Structures are given as structure tokens and as C-alpha cells.
């Protein structure tokens, strides 16, 4: 158990955290035909949208209730209704996911109640599922907002369980998983003959694909009909500690659940595979065995770089547990770590002596003091990486100064393999040739040096 440190300061320097509503929006985008809707001022949406667009390099259908001076004071129920009406008219979404912002929650309105009542009244909205999650910016970060959205979806759209559908498995995907991660994990589940319902499934919507038409809502993602069947699954597999409350909600509907803190690292993936073997009653397929044998070999090849490696890590709790755990399992030491939110028990499980709930400013100080050799955090860390001359492995959200963040897979045997290569090669990319200065040695006398003669004539 790491000790959680709350720095005693009023100033946050270079935020690590991304806001909770943005996390909710990202989760909502993993639903088919979805439009996330921020209940707040226009600016909250604009910032989040730019953030999402820079990371995913996609048009992001994110909308706002556009609270203004008046509605901020008087309450925004009407704004929501008007927004739903407009969105339905313009983009015909199947799903609208509402996330509240600080502006709304500061006033403490009963938005959920108002919404329930309004939806009853507006039966013409029936063709669009509407979900509301309370995600004030002042509580938690992206991971928390994502979790609240998933819980809101389950609460609103999953009826009580019924007869079990054999082979059907719920896969609750945490916010720390990239689209490629989700695809890899879901693929592992399928490899055992199981049929996963992935919630949310950003691998089908935010994976970066060119489609044949323009849509004002998400293209791909978890189908609403699938969500409605989640209460009848054989089991729930939740990836990431933040998905535990959602898993518990499904358990309450009769679906037994297992929570996997990480699916990165040999032992961690083994645990997941063991669960799949149990659930399916099948042996592991050959391709998975090969992937494991390859990972084992990669561990051998990369441990020269990871062994004793002094790591600085800035990430949300589940991501920090996953990547930090995999590196510590390879002999690295997390010498400085900052995370965003103490709401999740994962924060304490980050494999380090102390975990700071702070910002990149804290991480920079910590990394410098502990002579870290490598930095793992999102793109905003590039300035500190430059200053401290650290190789910088980009992870988490946002990654805007590299392309293809959505396609980086660090989950499963294969993803772990790629991750270890990535870290080892980041270190190899830094190696400099030894110089006498490094040892306090002097150079040989100048006398010995060869002075090139003028070119010979011939």
C-alpha cells in the first residue's frame, strides 16, 4: 500500500488531471449513435472538444446546454430539454449522454429529478435514450467521470436480470484502456468462444477509421440492445478498479463480477486468462499460448533496460497501476509518481512508497530529486521531459504531440510485449557513448593526436 500524499499548497502547476465531464463524454462516445452533452457553459464544451479532437484526431460530436448568465442563476432544466430537441432534430442520435459541469453542480440543482420528469413528459423523445451523470469538475478526474457515466448507463438502461444467456460476458472497460487495448482485451475474450458486451466500446468508435458518410454522432460503439441484455450475462469482467462500482451494480442484478486491476504484465494477463478459462471451460487457444511465449521472450530481452530503471510516472490511478505494475514487475522502481484522484482504491495500489495526489509540477520536482531516468505521462509532460533530459513515453490523456495514441496497445500479452519494447527502446534511444569525463579521466596528451597532413599530391 502506497502512502497517499496530499501536497499542502494552494497552487497547482501544470495540471496532470483532465476534468471529470470530459471522461464522461469519452465513455458516452463508446455507445453507438451517441452524442455527449455537457450541462454547463459553452466554454466547458469547447475546451473539452478541442482536447478530444487533438487526442483522437477525429471530429467529436460533443454538445452543450449553453448555460448563460441567466440560466446559471435560474437553473437549466429548459436548456437541457431544448438541447435534446435540437440534437434529435439535427443528428438523430440513438443516445444522448449528459454530463454536468461545475457551473451546474455548484448550484446543486436536482438535475436528475428534473430530467426524469421531463422525459416522462416528452414521450416524443422516446427514440433517444438519455442518460445523466453528475460529474462536477471539482470532484475527481477523467477516470471518475468515465466511471460515473458507465454507472449512469447501467442504472438507466440495464433492466433487472433474466434467464442467463450462455457465453455472454460483460466487459467493463476502464478509461485507461485505449481503443486498441479494448479491442485486444475483447479479442482475448472472444478467443475463448465467449461473446463479450463491451461497455463502453470505444474500439468501435474512437479507433480512427474513415467512413463513407458524415454523422453528427458516434459511429460505432456499444449497441443499446446489447446494453439492455447485460443483466443476463454469465459474468462481468471489469478492467480497472474504477469500474468496480459499475460491476457491483451488475452484480446486484444477478451477474457475478470479477475486477481486474490491470491487464498489463505477465502475471496480470495470466490472471485474466485463467478467469476466461474458468468462465468458458475451454483451454487457451494456440495463438494466445504463442503470444505468452513471445511476451516471456520479450521480458528476457528487455529486462536489461528495465531492471533498476528509475521511473517517473504521472497517470490516473488505473493507468498508473497498470503501467507502473508492469514495470515494477520487470525490476523497475517507481521513484516519483503523481496521480489525479484519491477516490479510487487504485491510487493506494500504485507500486511505490508514496503517491502524490498532485500535478506535473509535483512530478517534475519528484523526478529531479529522485534522479528518474524515464518519464511516463501524457503529452503535457514533454516540457519537463525536455528540461530534465528524460525520454518520455506518452500515455494516458491527452496525447497530442504524437499521432496514433488510440492505436497504442499495452494490454494483454501482446500489448505488454509492445509496451516493454517501447520502454526499453526509449532507454536505448538515450544511450550516449562513454566519455572520459564520465569517469573523471583525462584525455590523452595532445601530442599523441594526429594532425591531418595536407592532401598528398599524386
Amino acid at each position, binding site marked *: 500500500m502506497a502512502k497517499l500524499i496530499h501536497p499542502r*499548497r*494552494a*497552487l*497547482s*502547476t*501544470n*495540471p496532470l*488531471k*483532465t*476534468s471529470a*465531464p*470530459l471522461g464522461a463524454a469519452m465513455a458516452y462516445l463508446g455507445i453507438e449513435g451517441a452524442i455527449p*452533452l455537457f450541462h454547463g*457553459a*459553452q*466554454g*466547458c*464544451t*469547447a*475546451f*473539452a472538444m*478541442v*482536447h478530444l*479532437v*487533438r487526442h483522437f484526431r*477525429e*471530429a467529436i460530436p460533443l*454538445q*452543450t*446546454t*449553453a*448555460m*448563460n*448568465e441567466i440560466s*446559471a442563476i435560474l437553473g437549466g432544466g429548459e*436548456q*437541457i430539454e*431544448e*438541447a435534446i430537441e*435540437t*440534437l434529435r432534430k*439535427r443528428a438523430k442520435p440513438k443516445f444522448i449522454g449528459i454530463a454536468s*459541469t*461545475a*457551473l451546474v453542480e*455548484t*448550484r446543486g440543482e436536482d438535475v436528475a429529478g428534473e430530467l426524469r420528469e421531463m422525459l416522462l413528459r416528452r414521450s416524443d423523445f422516446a427514440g433517444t435514450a438519455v442518460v445523466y451523470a453528475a460529474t*462536477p*469538475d*471539482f*470532484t475527481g*478526474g477523467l477516470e471518475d467521470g468515465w466511471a460515473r457515466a458507465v454507472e449512469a448507463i447501467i442504472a438507466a438502461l440495464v433492466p433487472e436480470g433474466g434467464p442467463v444467456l450462455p457465453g455472454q460476458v460483460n466487459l467493463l472497460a476502464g478509461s485507461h484502456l485505449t481503443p486498441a487495448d479494448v479491442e485486444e482485451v475483447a479479442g482475448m475474450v472472444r478467443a475463448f468462444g465467449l461473446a463479450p458486451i463491451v461497455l463502453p466500446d470505444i474500439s468501435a468508435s474512437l479507433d480512427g477509421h*474513415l*467512413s463513407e458518410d*458524415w454523422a*453528427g454522432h458516434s459511429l460505432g460503439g456499444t449497441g443499446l440492445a446489447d446494453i439492455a441484455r447485460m443483466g443476463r450475462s454469465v459474468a462481468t469482467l471489469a478492467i480497472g478498479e474504477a469500474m468496480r462500482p459499475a460491476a457491483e451494480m451488475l452484480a446486484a442484478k444477478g451477474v457475478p463480477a470479477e475486477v481486474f486491476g490491470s491487464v498489463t504484465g505477465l502475471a496480470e494477463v495470466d490472471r485474466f486468462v485463467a478467469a476466461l478459462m474458468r468462465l468458458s471451460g475451454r483451454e487457451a487457444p494456440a495463438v494466445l499460448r504463442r503470444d505468452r511465449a513471445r511476451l516471456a521472450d520479450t521480458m528476457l530481452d528487455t529486462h536489461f533496460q528495465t531492471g533498476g530503471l528509475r521511473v517517473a510516472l504521472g497517470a490516473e490511478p488505473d493507468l498508473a497501476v497498470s503501467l507502473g505494475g508492469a514495470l515494477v514487475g520487470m525490476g523497475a522502481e517507481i521513484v516519483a509518481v503523481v496521480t489525479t484522484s484519491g477516490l479510487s482504491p487504485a491510487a493506494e495500489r500504485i507500486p511505490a512508497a508514496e503517491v502524490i495526489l498532485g500535478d506535473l*509540477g509535483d512530478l517534475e520536482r519528484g523526478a529531479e530529486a529522485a534522479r528518474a531516468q524515464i518519464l511516463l505521462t501524457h503529452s*503535457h509532460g514533454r*516540457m519537463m521531459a525536455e528540461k530534465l533530459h528524460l525520454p518520455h513515453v506518452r500515455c494516458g490523456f491527452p496525447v*497530442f504531440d504524437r499521432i496514433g495514441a488510440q492505436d497504442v496497445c499495452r494490454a494483454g500479452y501482446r500489448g505488454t510485449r509492445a509496451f516493454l519494447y517501447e520502454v526499453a527502446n526509449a532507454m536505448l534511444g538515450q544511450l550516449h557513448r562513454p566519455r572520459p569525463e564520465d569517469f573523471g579521466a583525462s584525455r590523452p596528451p595532445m601530442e599523441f593526436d594526429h594532425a591531418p597532413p595536407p592532401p598528398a599530391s599524386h
Partner: protein
Amino acid sequence: MAEPLKQQIAEAFVEPACETNRAKSEAARKKGCAKPLMPGAAAGGCAFDGAMIALQPIVDVAHLVHAPLACAGNGWDNRGSASSGSQLYRKGFTTDLTELDIVMGEGEKKLYRAIREVIEAEHPAAVFVYATCVPALIGDDIAAVCKVAAMRFGTPVIPINAPGYVGSKNLGNKLGAAALIEHVVGTMEPEAPGPTDINIIGDFNLSGELWQVTPLLDRLGVRVLGSVSGDARYRQIAMMHRARVTMVVCSHAFLPMARKLEERWGIPYFEGSFYGISDTSAALRRLCALLVERGAPEDLLARCEALIAEEEAKARAALAPYRARVEGKRVLLYTGGHKTWSVVSALQELGMEVVGTSTRKATEEDKGRVVEIMGDERHMFDNMAPREMYTLLREARADVLMSGGRSQFVALKARVPWVDVNQEKHEPYAGYVGMVDLVRAIDRSVNNPMWAALRAPAPWEAGAVVAAVAPLVLAAVPSSKTDFEDC
């Protein structure tokens, strides 16, 4: 909302110098420029965003956002303003208000402590404190905190009162600039004010665009004394009142600031642009003319003309090789203001056809100019919904879209080249050299063979043809026992 803020906002809306406003009737003018936002169909940043955009490029200032996490966390480190000096402006500072802070009413105290901490840690030239929705809602008196802190810590602490919900990005630009006039301009004196000192307002030195122009000014002996806000230092804002002329670059939002500089300190201003060859030349001419009016040596005009002649010739020579590569290409322009009108004539000169231009944010004067350049009004449109633009582009009714990042994916997803001419772009396109860079960027984009590959049907689609260079298919020749070496 606190009374002073209401007043400021009202003042920002009533803008006699705004050309759009001047064209309006008295009644319409009083209503201001704010459009009501439609829930579910609103786009664009808030007033806080606008204030940050305007001021954050001031490089040696600590920009402190008094807000819950989202405002700074989602909004910092996202623009390409370049600095030749301090990198302090790139750091994100915020009070990161938590639920506890809000419930306990600790906002003001936390802000005060954060100001102290940032001054101790960074020794900034000044601290700019940005108000946001939540503190405004709970009634934090930011101005008072800033005042006390400034006195206590001996560092200027400037309140920027532009909470998001009060309005648009544009309004935020104005409120930010107004704060500079109210709190900063005139608080310091330059060592040796000269007859060719100028202010440049509204250029953000994106990717170094200011530096594409300052060598020209250097050659004319013109010094940028004050700048809002590309590569600017705090002292340059404080000394703006001693410049002889103000140039407002491509930005209606900064006109009120220029007007205030004229009203209070008698500095004449003009609007100009450094995009495109002729606009750059026009701006230099106007600048020099005003400087001479205000006492600069007469020969500045002749020197300016010589410079223009030389630079235009160089630029046109550099552009010539691109003519054949871009000639006949159809451009759709989608951006606000006269930023891109400036390049239209240059593009036309290279044989490109502008098939459409948006007139969002455009003044009547802008529109008039478009008609003048393009012959008629048929190609002007106001807003275009993404789906509509997608359809237009997908039907190949334009060869390239030039716009800001917001419509980037509309073009790309329609398999149409896109050239960024907005604030997020990674290449500088200002001045004479920038024009060449822009045309090179257009060439690189429209002539990329990738587009043809992307538009070709997939193997499983109707119309998929065998590729031009088909792999050789060797006929099976079981009877001909070719004598292969047998090891």
C-alpha cells in the same frame, strides 16, 4: 454578476470603432454583438477562453486560473505562440478549486495563497488572475484579492474578469484587452522612446509569424515597443502608451483597445494584415505614413517603398515555380475576418480559383472587398453546417479547403486536402516569406498522391479496377520443363 463586470461587458458591446457596429442602425447597435446561444447547437469558446487567448502569449507573466480543474486542465498548453525569452507563459497555473474549497467558501483565501506561491516559485513579471464561472457564481471578489496581494508581495497582480458564461470568446478577447488598459498600460516608462516606436496588437506570433515580419521593420528602423501579445513581455504592455502608432492585426476584438490607446494617449491606429503580399505591403505603407505624420523622418516613406519593391519581387520570383502546380485548383475558404481575404488575391494571381468564402465574422467592408476581388457575391456564404460542407467537398466541388482546425476533419473525411490557416497551424504564413510558405503548403497538400489512392474504391467496392501496374501473372506452364538449376 458583480456590477463592475456588467459595466465592462456592456462597454465592450458598445463599440463605436467596430466597423460592423458602425454599419448598424442606432437601435441594433445598442443590442450589442452578442448572439443568443442555442442549446445543443452551440460551438466555440467562452469569454474566459477568449481572455486567455488574448493574454496568455505574454511570456513573462504567470497566468493563474482561479477555477475548478477543467478550465485550466483542459485549456492550458494548447497554442503555438512562440517566445524568444521567458517560457513561463507555457506553464499552467490554477487554484484547482475542489468541492471542499467551494462548500467551505475558501475560494478567496486559496487564491491569495496561490498568488503568493506562484510569486515565490517563479518570480514572474506579473500575475494575471483569471476569474471563471464558479468563483463568479459563489461571489469571490477577485479584484480585491489581487489588490491586496499586489501590495503585499510587491508584484503586479492583475484581475482578468471574464467568467465563461458571460459570453463568447470574442467578448473574452475584449475583456482581456480592457484589463490591460485598466491595470497595466501606462505603468512603466521606456528608457528611450523613439519616433518610430509602434504597438502591434492582435498578432500572437503563432509558430513565429511575428518574426517573419519584424526583420522588415528592423530594416526600416521601426521598433515594436508594445505588443499584444506575440512574444510580448509585461513591460511592453506597461509601456504601450509611449508608442507613436498602433497597428491592429486581423482582429476586430482588439479595436476597443486601440481606440482606448488613441483616446487616452493620442496614439493613432490602423487595421492591417500581414497575410498576403499586397496586404503586407499596404500595412507597411500605412504604418510608415502614420509614423511620418507623427514625426518620423520623411525618408522613411522612400525607404519603405524600396523595401516593398525588393521584397515583392523576391516573393513573386519564389512563387513562380509553384504556378504550374497550383494553377486551376479550386479553393474553398472558411474562416472569419479579413485574415484570408488577404490571401485571396495572391492565390488568384497564381491561377487558383476561390470557389467559396465564408463571411462569418466578416464586416460589411470585408464583404465588399470580396465582391470586388471575386467579381460577385455568388461565392459568399455565411455559416455552413459540417454535413453540408462534407457533401460539397465529397462531391469534389473544391480541390482544397483552407480553414481553421474546427473544419479540418470535415475536409479530411471527405478526402479533400485541407490547409490550416488558423491559430493552431504549425507553419507561419506571415509577410512575404510566409506567403511563399503558404503556397508551398497548398502545393504539398493538393498534389499529394495520397488523395487519389484514398478516393479509389476498395477492392470489394463496385468500380474497383485492377491497378495500373498489375502484378505479372505467370501462366502456369506445366509442359515446358524449364531447366532450372537443380542445386
